[in-house]
């Protein structure tokens, strides 16, 4: 049995909820921004395309503390986004996680979109499809890769520590409810306090969450009508 120390249910639920809220919102925002970028880049040949894709791939390796620092500067009172008063809020954490998750999502989904054979796009066009129909067909054909991209982005976001610590502030209210503390930052705090067992318990919850999200994604990804076929 772990000695969970100060770990009560309210605290546990609230940091889990903040983790899920921030990561899910960041991935949703990344998807809203990133999938159109993937389609636009994947569909067109243009001068400098290889440079653009290289920059996107490089973005996957952004050091999170550097991103946190940049977002901190941007959101500070004297920064360009200071008027929004977002620093040390969950929304600031969403912003930094979006910046970190976006290159992962774009890079993996771009690869998936580009792997859809031109023949299939031509077939959709020849069957009377408009450019929107062809784009939807490509998304459908690339769905395995796109779901993988979403899962990779989610993994990047929910396991993030450095930037959310900097821009979120790791704040917990006096009634033990979390404002900007996530599972990952809570683990850091517990480790510093020497509560290794508590940290491990929180880590197990984090792993279970990641596993659950991946299982959901895999279930959606593999749900293909007629994939196994039914004879008549």
């Amino acid at each position, binding site marked *: 049995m772990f000695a969970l120390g100060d770990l009560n249910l309210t605290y546990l639920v609230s940091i889990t909820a903040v983790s899920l809220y921030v990561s899910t919102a960041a991935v949703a925002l990344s998807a809203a921004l990133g999938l159109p970028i993937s389609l636009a880049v994947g569909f067109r040949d243009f001068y400098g395309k290889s440079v653009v894709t290289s920059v996107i791939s490089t973005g996957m390796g952004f050091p999170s503390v550097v991103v946190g620092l940049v977002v901190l500067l941007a959101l500070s009172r004297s920064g360009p986004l200071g008027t929004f008063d977002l620093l040390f809020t969950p929304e600031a954490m969403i912003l930094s996680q979006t910046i970190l998750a976006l290159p992962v999502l774009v890079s993996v989904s771009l690869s998936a979109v580009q792997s859809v*054979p031109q*023949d*299939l796009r*031509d*077939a*959709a*066009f*020849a*069957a*009377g*499809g*408009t450019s929107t*129909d062809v784009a939807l*067909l490509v998304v*459908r*054909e690339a769905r395995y890769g796109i779901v993988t991209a979403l899962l990779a982005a989610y993994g990047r976001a929910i396991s993030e520590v450095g930037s959310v610590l900097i821009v979120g502030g790791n704040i917990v209210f006096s009634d033990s409810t979390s404002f900007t503390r996530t599972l990952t930052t809570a683990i850091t705090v517990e480790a510093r306090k020497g509560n290794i067992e508590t940290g491990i318990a929180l880590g197990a919850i984090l792993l279970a969450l990641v596993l659950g999200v991946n299982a959901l994604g895999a279930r959606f990804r593999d749900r*293909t*009508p*007629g*994939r*196994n*076929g*039914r*004879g*008549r």
Partner: protein
Amino acid sequence: MTAERPGTDGSGVGGADEPAASDPASNGAGRGGTRLAAHDLGHGFGNGAVLEDISLAVEPGEILAVVGPSGTGKTTLFRLLAMFERPDEGAVEVGGDDVWDLPEARRLAVRRRIGMAFQTRSLFSTTVEENVSYGLRVRRSWSARIRDAVEGLFGRDEPSDTVEKALRTVGMFDKVDRDAGSLSAGEAQRVAIARALAPDPDVLLLDEPTSNLDPRNTAAIESAMRAARDRGIAVALATHDMQQARRVSDRTAVILGGTCIESGPTDEVFGSPDDDRVRQFVEGKLVY
């Protein structure tokens, strides 16, 4: 340079009795009215011309074979006829209208009267039924498509009569529920042709549909071509298989080096070609 047989009109292949042209954008135009023609087409890809001065036409209720060795520009020609891109020179006409002079909405309506199947495997990774009904779905309104998608979550309907008819034409209705990925190359090609036929096009373009297929699947596809012709569809077939052109086509156009060098009734083109290169090609002496 287009070589024309005596008695043909300026289209190179078209006969003297040109059917009345119908409004290409009208919905459900009757058969016998839609003619697909290329006039003086020229096209290139930066490193030189692929097609030069091509003129030909395919009439309703006939099969036109466009023959020539691989790499001679047949696929480029068919892509221009299917309106994948605008030709550098010349015009593509459907029912008498230059399709690239039409407003976009009308051009889409015209494009939707042309079905096409390709040489390469091009089925979507879903069921045979969904592949064949794709062209029907994209013609529906967005609200109807969304409603269908929602209803699809709660169960699947029986295949529509249109899908059934198209699949029966190619002898594949027994595989309607199969995953397209599980089909053989020949079966996949037959389904691709059913997909092109399902929206009941006025023109059917088949780009090397039987290359590398076994005789059974080849026979099924040739049978589907004849059935389409008998329904009044204008069928254009690109092939390097001269025996196939002889078997199925009513008229033949020979393309060599990106230029149509001879065209006319198939028996005449193969029986007494005017052009020496065609004679050598037909006799298998002209090797590319």
